[in-house]
């Protein structure tokens, strides 16, 4: 890994201000904040509708979402936004020379362990994001921006739990 060649990260406070301006722009332009998990939900609902239409119609979760999107679950604001995130992340990686195929992990654990926990973490985060009506982006960050009570609760619950559990998973990270 060419650590010396890759550029340093942006000052976190500057990055935070720019992040805030992105959320502000989303609210000013579209009347909503940013998000991530909702785009995956759109993709899943569209996928289930295509593969098993009867099953999707009989399930309130899929059916409600589809109806709220005029029957076109994939044609959703967050889907377009997440496609942008992939492009934006990639461009940033190109500019700062950080494009590499790798499993990033603590050298004290094997990459297999890292991948198993990445999968488990993803499953839990996905499940939790549906109960929480949004993830760190959609519920916590964007919710806090509009002073939503739910946004503050999500933020406290996500970070609070991760802090409490940090001790038990310390071998993964330190």
């Amino acid at each position, binding site marked *: 890994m060419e650590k010396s060649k890759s550029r340093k990260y942006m000052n976190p406070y500057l990055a935070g201000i720019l992040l805030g301006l992105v959320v502000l722009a989303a609210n000013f332009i579209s009347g909503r904040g940013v998000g991530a998990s909702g785009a995956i939900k759109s993709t899943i609902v569209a996928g289930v509708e295509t593969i098993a239409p009867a099953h999707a119609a009989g399930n309130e979760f899929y059916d409600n979402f589809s109806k709220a999107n005029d029957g076109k679950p994939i044609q959703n604001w967050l889907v377009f936004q997440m496609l*942008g995130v992939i492009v934006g992340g990639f461009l940033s990686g190109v500019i700062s020379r950080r494009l590499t195929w790798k499993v990033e992990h603590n050298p004290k654990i094997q990459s297999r362990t890292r991948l198993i926990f990445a999968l*488990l973490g993803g499953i839990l985060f996905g499940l939790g*994001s549906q109960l929480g009506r949004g993830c760190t982006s959609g519920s916590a960050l964007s919710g806090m921006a509009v002073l939503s009570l739910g946004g503050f609760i999500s933020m406290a619950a996500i970070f609070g739990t991760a802090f409490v559990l940090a001790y038990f998973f310390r071998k993964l990270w330190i």
Partner: protein
Amino acid sequence: MGPLAINEIISENTNFLLAFFIGIGFGFVLEQGGFSSSRKLAGVFYGYDTVVLKVFFTGAITAMLGLLFFSLFGWIDMDLVYVNETFLWSAIVGGVIMGAGFIMGGYCPGTSFCGAAIGKIDAMIFIIGLFIGIFFFGEAYDFFEPLFHAKDMGSPRISEFFGISEGILVLIVIVAAILMFWIGEWAEKKFPREEY
């Protein structure tokens, strides 16, 4: 004037196009801030790297203040802006499950897409997990439904909830954030880590 899409100043298709550009900005800033690295993200929970704390709270404050000013100047009608709904129990239980996912997986959904965009294989596996988790919720929706709809509080703003003005609330958040930034800077010196 704003929100442009809701006031029909821009069309639905323009709104989708702009969503794509907002996403580019979002992904670019997250990656530049270091959110494509799970080891940087997890650092906040052990004190060796508190970039998450700094970027997240600076971002939240900037957006809050921006909306407050835009509203004051009459540039945006805050009544037309989406305010997240609050269902108390599912917000708490969902947040707890997400917190567990965060410390195990090292990413949240948005940051995992940034990691995947620059080739992190662990981020791609995390994304597969997200798909499984959300699909599982959909299939088990009948089981989760009572919790999902319990304690519907509507869409309250936290300032309304506590009966204080928005300005005072934002000021409290700013003071709290400055305290946390100070603790964060201290923690990074206290629990340093060389290369990760």
